[in-house]
């Protein structure tokens, strides 16, 4: 089974859906666990981080009323999506993820060698996405409420993550809207934020070209999703005894997760970076060493035969 | 009358044991000599005559020992390790505690076998590469001291303190003993020293296999009371020796013949 091709198709369809779905009035709600940007005119659903930041920016007392119930409704939807599909949202749906995968394919086609993090680098910056997640909740709270009698933060800091997220300048481009690619000189805060946004956009094109899914290591949505990975129905399991330590899985993993290969004791190996792209299962040459499971049932196991078929070893020379 | 025969063809002696209805009814021990087939046949004929049996009463024959394949009248063969364990476990069957370690010192090899709770071989180690720790070594000692093998036990029990013999190789130990005799050392003490050498060697083998009580000791040299005592001291435990230790292996083979029937 060529999962990578199926995934590419689903990513493409999701991209079309998320960017243009609104044209045919598709509305998947405001609790999507992917960067389906609010700034896309016809988006079929909203990235949950946007309402999260918006609601966080409201004064506390408003949250105790109708707004709070609305927030709970979006959060409920979000949690439901996550319980069913876990971080597969990152690997199979997220439009930013899709664009990064396309950049990687372009790089491979141009025969440019890919770059990898050193182990130290990868380990050192693991916490960045969690820091961003905390900031994107705390900063808006500081706008709507005053901490310890200190003055409230400027309104310019509203939806702080959206202002630097690469989705904001990128995804509207597909509607023909290039208005988010600029530096906003209207205030000091805006200058900083929009400059950051441009820098991150530039980084997106260069770093994500050279390193697979560069941005995903720092994405706060990924951080939020990782909090639920143990409770989800979709999961990745490993049988440590069948593992021959060949290292194929870690080598092809776009997120460079070493634990897939190194872990021999635990069976559940969805780590904080994993986006369930299942490339690891595709290159595992041992039967049933790695398995994708849904509600405990195996839906895609690693097999020697499947491995060889995908490697093209069976084709006529 | 269903009888079963076990034949243990060792390097020095050939042993035959006949069992019937779960009891041992007769045995024979003869020097193997050069023609083991002939020796075994003669022993069988003599034993049958002694027990007043015919050949057709023997319903199954199992051979064991290093010459087990050299006789043609056996129905099957079994390794001496398995046979030894069977014989030892059967001999100790009425004992409250079970046999867990079997030590066998033969003419030209020695073995230590670990037995599990069900009376099956768990692990074993053999010394079949050199004469040290075997009956051959004791033969050498008797030759130099000009005594009989049967005197070894009693003489050594009279010893005050054993004289240490350093060489592990039987050939070099021979030279060492000759020089001790020349220096007019006490015979009993030399014999006790030789026994110590063997016991240390066996103890090393026991350690590699693991000592669990009860320890059972068989093979010709087990008749040597002096050797048994030194071995008990070396292993720091009591050792059970059957009344006819030379035939335990053949007995085990006979038991296996009855099971195969």
């Amino acid at each position, binding site marked *: 089974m060529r999962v990578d091709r199926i995934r590419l198709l689903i990513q493409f369809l999701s991209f079309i859906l998320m960017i243009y779905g609104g044209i045919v009035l598709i509305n998947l709600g405001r609790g999507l666990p992917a960067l389906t940007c609010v700034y896309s005119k016809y988006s079929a659903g909203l990235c949950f981080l946007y309402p999260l930041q918006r609601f966080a920016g409201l004064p506390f007392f408003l949250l105790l009323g109708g707004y709070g119930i609305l927030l709970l409704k979006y959060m409920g939807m979000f949690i439901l999506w996550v319980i069913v599909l876990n971080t597969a949202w990152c690997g199979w749906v997220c439009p930013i993820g899709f664009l990064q995968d396309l950049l990687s394919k372009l790089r*491979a086609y141009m*025969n*440019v*060698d*890919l770059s990898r993090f*050193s*182990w*130290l680098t990868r380990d050192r910056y693991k916490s960045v996405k969690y820091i961003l997640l905390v900031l994107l909740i705390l900063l808006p709270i500081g706008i709507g409420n005053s901490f310890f009698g200190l003055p409230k933060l400027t309104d310019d800091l509203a939806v702080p993550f959206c202002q630097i997220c690469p989705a904001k300048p990128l995804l509207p481009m597909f509607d023909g809207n290039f208005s988010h690619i600029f530096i906003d000189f209207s205030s000091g805060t805006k200058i900083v934020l929009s400059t950051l946004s441009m820098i991150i956009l530039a980084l997106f094109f260069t770093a994500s070209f050279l390193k697979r899914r560069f941005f995903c290591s720092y994405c706060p949505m990924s951080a939020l999703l990782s909090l639920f990975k143990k409770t989800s129905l979709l999961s990745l399991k490993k049988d*440590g*005894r*069948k*593992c*021959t*330590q*060949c*290292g*194929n899985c870690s*080598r*092809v993993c776009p997120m460079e997760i070493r634990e897939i*290969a*190194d872990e*021999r004791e635990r069976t559940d190996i969805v780590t904080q970076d994993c986006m369930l792209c299942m490339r690891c299962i595709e*290159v595992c*040459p041992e039967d049933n060493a790695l398995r994708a499971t849904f509600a405990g049932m195996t839906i895609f196991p690693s097999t*020697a035969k499947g*491995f*060889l078929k995908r*490697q*093209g*070893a*069976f084709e006529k*020379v | 009358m269903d009888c079963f025969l076990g034949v243990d063809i060792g390097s020095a002696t050939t042993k035959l044991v006949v069992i019937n209805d779960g009891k041992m009814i007769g045995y024979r021990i003869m020097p193997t000599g050069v023609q083991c087939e002939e020796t075994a046949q003669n022993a069988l004929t003599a034993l049958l005559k002694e027990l007043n049996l015919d050949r057709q009463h023997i319903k199954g024959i199992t051979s064991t020992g*290093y010459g087990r394949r050299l006789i043609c009248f056996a129905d099957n063969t*079994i*390794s*001496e*390790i*398995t046979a030894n364990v069977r014989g030892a476990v059967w001999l100790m069957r009425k004992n409250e505690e079970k046999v867990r370690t079997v030590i066998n010192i033969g003419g030209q090899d020695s073995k230590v076998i670990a037995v599990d709770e069900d009376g*099956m*071989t*768990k*692990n*074993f180690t*053999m010394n*079949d*590469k050199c004469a040290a720790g075997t009956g051959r070594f004791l033969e050498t000692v008797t030759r130099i001291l000009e005594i009989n093998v049967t005197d070894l036990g009693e003489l050594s029990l009279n010893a005050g303190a054993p004289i240490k013999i350093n060489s592990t190789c039987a050939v070099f130990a021979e030279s060492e003993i000759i020089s001790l005799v020349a220096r007019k050392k006490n015979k009993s003490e030399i014999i006790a020293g030789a026994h110590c050498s063997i016991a240390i060697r066996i103890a090393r083998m026991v350690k590699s296999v693991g000592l669990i009580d009860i320890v059972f000791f068989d093979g010709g040299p087990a008749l040597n009371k002096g050797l048994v005592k030194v071995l008990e001291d070396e292993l720091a435990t009591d050792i059970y020796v059957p009344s006819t230790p030379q035939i335990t292996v053949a007995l085990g083979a006979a038991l296996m013949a009855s099971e195969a029937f």
Partner: protein
Amino acid sequence: MSEKQNKLNRVQKRIKRHLSMSVREILDKMDEDRTRPKNMAYFDRLFNAFIEDSKRIVKKENGQKVVGTYCILVPEELIYAAGAVPVRLCAGSYDTVENGEDYLPDISCPMVKSAIGFSAMPVIPLYQSCDLVVIPATCNWKVKMGEILKKFVPVLMLDLPRIKESENSRKFWLNEVNKFKQELQKLTGLKINRSRLRKAIKTIQKAQIEVRRFEKVRMSQLPVIQGQDALAVMNTYFYDHVESWTEAVKGLNDELEERLCSGKTVCSSSAPRILLTGSPIIFPNWKMPVLIEESGGILVADEFCTSNRYLHDMVALDELSMSDMIHAIADRYLLPCTCPIFSDTLDRRNRISQMSDDYQVEGVIYHILKGCHPYDAEMKTIEEMLKDKGIPQLKIETDFSPEDVEQIRTRIEAFIETIKGRRR
């Protein structure tokens, strides 16, 4: 001809005669066995070439370079991609060990001594006609062997990290593989480009497909092929050209799968199933598999670098750039290697544990060559792991000499009797 040369020739003839006798003994016994699969004839012919036509053991074209290897860590895909042909030279003959003892202490790896013996004297021309000999610096004896073999053939040593788990060691090995690639290109004058490398990887993968089929056959409860024959099949890969070998194994697999359907076995299905592990068994050092099967057991699996581990793990291609392919090759050769020269035993324990389940193994025989410390050192860990699974292990320490055959036979017989006894 000088007196010295004359003497050497006579010694050489003597060794050849002894080698011939050893090989003949094994082949004759194989011949007598009526239950052998017909397709084994191909592999027998290759071993026959040892004594009859040793010049033509290795099939090569005119001008093609021959690269001798001493270890499964040498990436053979690179050798094929450079237009050369790889030959595994790990040796199993007792008769050349004596020669090797001129250069190494008595208690040292018999395989190394035998290989040095072959290289020092033209008993089989193969050893001296290699254009390059590649030796990964695995154990102490191989490291010294490199230095000694330099006297007879051009040698390339590949340096090796002993602790696979660190990032530095993997980078180090990747560098060594790249260095090897450069040396090969210099040797053959042919550049290793992407399409040649891709083709080489695919060719070896085809052989690996047949090996996986072969493994599946041996996992079944019905013993349709003897362990000795299975070892012979894997051993001939050392010398044979990969494509013809693959074809031959394919034919054998077809015959064996048919036997599984028809139920034609080579021995009783109740023969105790044995797994052999430890220091490698190489033709004509055929003592162990023969004794196991003569004592009533069936050798269903092995964990030797000369057999099962040689072709089990596969190179996984991701992107088709040169650097990615080299990375994939470097990983495949280093990471799943369970050789005891590496610091951690966990992988080997897991491998043997998994194999015991897959092949329904009832007993493990741990084979240690005298002087082989790495395998000796891991014996107790493997024994503990097997004890937890309720599988007994027998340790056999020996060398290539035939002197201790009867002693080993007694031990193996007792072991097999123990297994049979436990079943009841």
